[in-house]
């Protein structure tokens, strides 16, 4: 890769990062359209994108974001109220930005669909906002709009006016006594209703005078000032005031003065040093732009942090951003593997009998230290894989929004626990099932119409709560809706039709709900675009199980439903119970263990053709002899010489027979790779402290084995 490619790659990465940061913010904006912080954040992102695009020759992208930025900058102003349809335009515009970026990245020399349409909409919006009086015909907008856009960028210094001012005020800029002072050019573009809002020029002239000397001011009256018969002082025709202040005050102090001015005025403050003036006056013909330090200031109302110059806005934003380093996840995995080896080596040393025999205090201390730091490194490295679920959740807002529009149901998605951390690999794999469940909630859960909701005594807007939390060593996601709930009668009816349920058999509600998760089951009477894509909840269940998690449903007819996804915190580590079966060491995930016990022989029954069962606290549970299940040995381990472990499972508890329990430890899960196919009873392996490899039992797979009726 040559240097340019690398730079390009960094550029593309940065763009992608910006895009991914903006996307959720736009959705937040839709909820709180007048949160100026969000608008500012989006503006900054788009601004950076524009700079990047232009410097890398992405002209299609640059051209588009230029206008988008202009539109955004209007709404950064306090008092500019963002309407829902405008927020919607932002979202559609952003879609174009994403698409056009993808095209640019792929080197496709064409414009994405709707590029012109959306661009035109932006231009129309710009024109309307900048000049509300004028009604701009949509057709001619492309050509007509440019002057209005330039209007936003006219903060360049007016050299003619400056020299006029110097002449008229008789100001001697070469006077040594004022060497350290600056001249501020303050330009106020005033609205017609300033008097109604209590504007009084005397107030800020007085305040400015406290800061320095007002050299000169230019009042510009609107030539549309009415004839006397229409004249009244409710409407102001003072269009612009441009004044020059000689002061040694900071620009911030100047800005503070304008806190007291009614909102909605754009105030620009340009700082001109005396040195600049000398230069300008000396070569008045050429405009030495580089000598002018300019800042553009938007006056916001008192409650918000007054006036923030653009540059500072950018500085602040970088300050806030946490410093991060991008690391390829494969490097993390490698690091993870190496740490695994370190842990093994460490525990090998600490368990080595020869070393113990030395009984050397100093050596033991160092071994302790080694042990501690090894565990510390291990947990830190594991921490690196943990990320907040936030980004995934925010993506879901978009999903719900889209489905809500498609179905015409008004939905509010309420997020909580977005900061809950979970293994990165898991986050990546959670999107699909979550999208599916949320679509399902909107499509099937929430009532078809607001009227139905209201008549059921609910608020007209449907609510869906998406929450994440840690429970012990599990990570739990809940999708709760206040919709119709699941009608088990309908589900059962469908299940009977599909031949999934058997007629004449009594099914509990839970059993009926489980039908939802069977392949090919779909309750929607018409196939909708939203959740009827031929992929059912069975796919969701499968992907959750692949993550070694489970999904449960709670529902109350008429009240709503909760879909709960329970996952291990990380895919890489489990809390394991180490057991011995004969000479082999196996690991049982502690999450599934109810308890272990020594069997009372009289409680064990052999049922012909169906295997062995035990009466455990009044429950008749099947027994799985692990050495037989796993073909570890032909030996039959007698129950009196064994320990039983009760395992919890949705489809019913069962009991494992092992020789003995040996301990409990956290283990790093490794895949069996090539061998992992078709061994449903084993979910992976772990390398123990001794260096020995132990198989990790798959609780789900063993339940499947029992359900297949093979345990006879």
């Amino acid at each position: 890769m040559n240097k340019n490619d690398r730079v390009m790659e960094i550029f593309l990465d940065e763009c992608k990062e910006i895009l991914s940061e903006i996307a959720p913010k736009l959705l937040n904006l839709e909820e709180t359209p007048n949160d100026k912080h969000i608008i500012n954040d989006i503006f900054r992102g788009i601004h950076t994108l524009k700079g990047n695009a232009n410097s890398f020759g992405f002209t299609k992208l640059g051209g588009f974001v230029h206008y988008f930025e202009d539109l955004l900058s209007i709404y950064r102003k306090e008092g500019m109220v963002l309407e829902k349809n405008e927020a919607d335009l932002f979202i559609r515009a952003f879609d174009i930005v994403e698409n056009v970026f993808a095209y640019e990245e792929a080197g496709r020399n064409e414009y994405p669909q709707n590029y012109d349409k959306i661009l035109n909409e932006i231009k129309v919006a710009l024109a309307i906002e900048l000049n509300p009086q004028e009604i701009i015909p949509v057709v001619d907008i492309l050509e007509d709009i440019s002057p209005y856009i330039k209007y936003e960028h006219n903060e360049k210094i007016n050299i003619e006016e400056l020299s006029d001012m110097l002449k008229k005020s008789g100001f001697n800029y070469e006077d040594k006594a004022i060497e350290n002072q600056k001249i501020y050019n303050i330009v106020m573009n005033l609205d017609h209703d300033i008097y109604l809002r209590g504007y009084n020029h005397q107030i800020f002239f007085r305040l400015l005078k406290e800061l320095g000397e007002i050299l000169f001011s230019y009042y510009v009256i609107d030539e549309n000032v009415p004839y006397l018969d229409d004249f009244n002082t409710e409407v102001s025709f003072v269009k612009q005031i441009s004044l020059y202040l000689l002061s040694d005050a900071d620009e911030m102090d100047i800005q503070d003065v304008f806190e007291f001015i009614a909102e909605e005025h754009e105030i620009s403050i340009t700082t001109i040093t005396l040195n600049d003036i000398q230069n300008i006056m000396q070569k008045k013909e050429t405009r030495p732009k580089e000598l002018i330090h300019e800042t553009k200031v938007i006056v916001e109302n008192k409650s918000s942090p007054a006036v923030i110059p653009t540059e500072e806005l950018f500085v602040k934003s970088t300050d806030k951003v946490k410093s991060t380093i991008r690391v390829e996840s494969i490097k993390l995995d490698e690091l993870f593997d190496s740490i695994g080896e370190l842990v093994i080596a460490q525990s090998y040393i600490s368990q080595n009998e020869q070393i113990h025999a030395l009984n050397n205090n100093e050596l033991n201390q160092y071994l302790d230290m080694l042990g501690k730091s090894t565990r510390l490194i291990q947990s830190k490295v594991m921490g690196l894989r943990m990320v907040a679920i936030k980004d995934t959740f925010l993506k879901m807002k978009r999903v719900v929004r889209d489905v809500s529009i498609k179905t015409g149901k008004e939905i509010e998605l309420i997020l909580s626990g977005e900061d809950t951390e979970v293994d990165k690999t898991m986050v990546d794999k959670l999107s699909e099932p979550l999208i599916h469940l949320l679509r399902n909630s909107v499509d099937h859960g929430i009532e078809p119409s607001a009227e139905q909701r209201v008549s059921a005594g609910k608020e007209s807007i449907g609510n869906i709560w998406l929450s994440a939390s840690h429970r012990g060593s599990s990570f739990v996601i809940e999708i709760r809706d206040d919709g119709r709930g699941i009608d088990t009668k309908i589900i059962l009816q469908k299940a009977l039709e599909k031949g999934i349920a058997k007629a004449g058999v009594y099914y509990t509600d839970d059993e009926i709900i489980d039908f939802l998760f069977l392949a090919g089951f779909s309750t929607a009477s018409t196939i909708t675009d939203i959740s009827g894509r031929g992929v059912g909840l069975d796919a969701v269940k499968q992907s959750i199980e692949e993550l070694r998690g489970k999904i449960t449903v709670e529902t109350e007819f008429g009240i709503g439903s909760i879909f709960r996804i329970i996952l291990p915190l990380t895919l890489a580590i489990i809390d394991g119970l180490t057991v011995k079966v004969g000479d082999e060491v196996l690991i049982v995930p502690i999450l599934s263990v109810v308890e272990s016990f020594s069997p009372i022989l009289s409680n064990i029954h052999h049922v012909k053709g169906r295997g062995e069962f035990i009466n455990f606290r009044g429950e008749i549970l099947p027994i799985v002899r692990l050495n037989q299940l796993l073909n570890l040995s032909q030996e039959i381990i007698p129950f009196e010489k064994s320990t039983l472990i009760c395992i919890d499972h949705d489809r019913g508890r069962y009991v494992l027979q092992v020789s003995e329990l040996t301990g409990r430890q956290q283990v790093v899960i490794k895949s069996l790779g090539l061998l992992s196919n078709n061994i449903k009873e084993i979910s992976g392996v772990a390398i123990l402290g001794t260096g020995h490899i132990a198989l990790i039992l798959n609780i789900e797979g063993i339940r499947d084995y029992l359900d297949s009726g093979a345990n006879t």
Partner: protein
Amino acid sequence: MNLRDDILTINGKTDNKELSALAKEILEHIDTIKEIVVSYEDGIESSALFSLLYSIRKTNPDINIPFLAEVVKHINGIGSMSLDIRG
């Protein structure tokens, strides 16, 4: 209203409310007023006065308004200033 010898003198301290009323009165005498003088020794209360002057000139361009003709004015409370009308 201080109208003497067809010369109207407007006090700079006239506030917005009074300016609105003044506009009506001036309109009644728009054909008799020859000149309008602004006395701004004590400053100018409201910038609406500037608008009013332009409105008068627009309504009757024959009225002489020296205030609008002065390129540079030194007004108490504002300092040196110039006034212009633009589109």
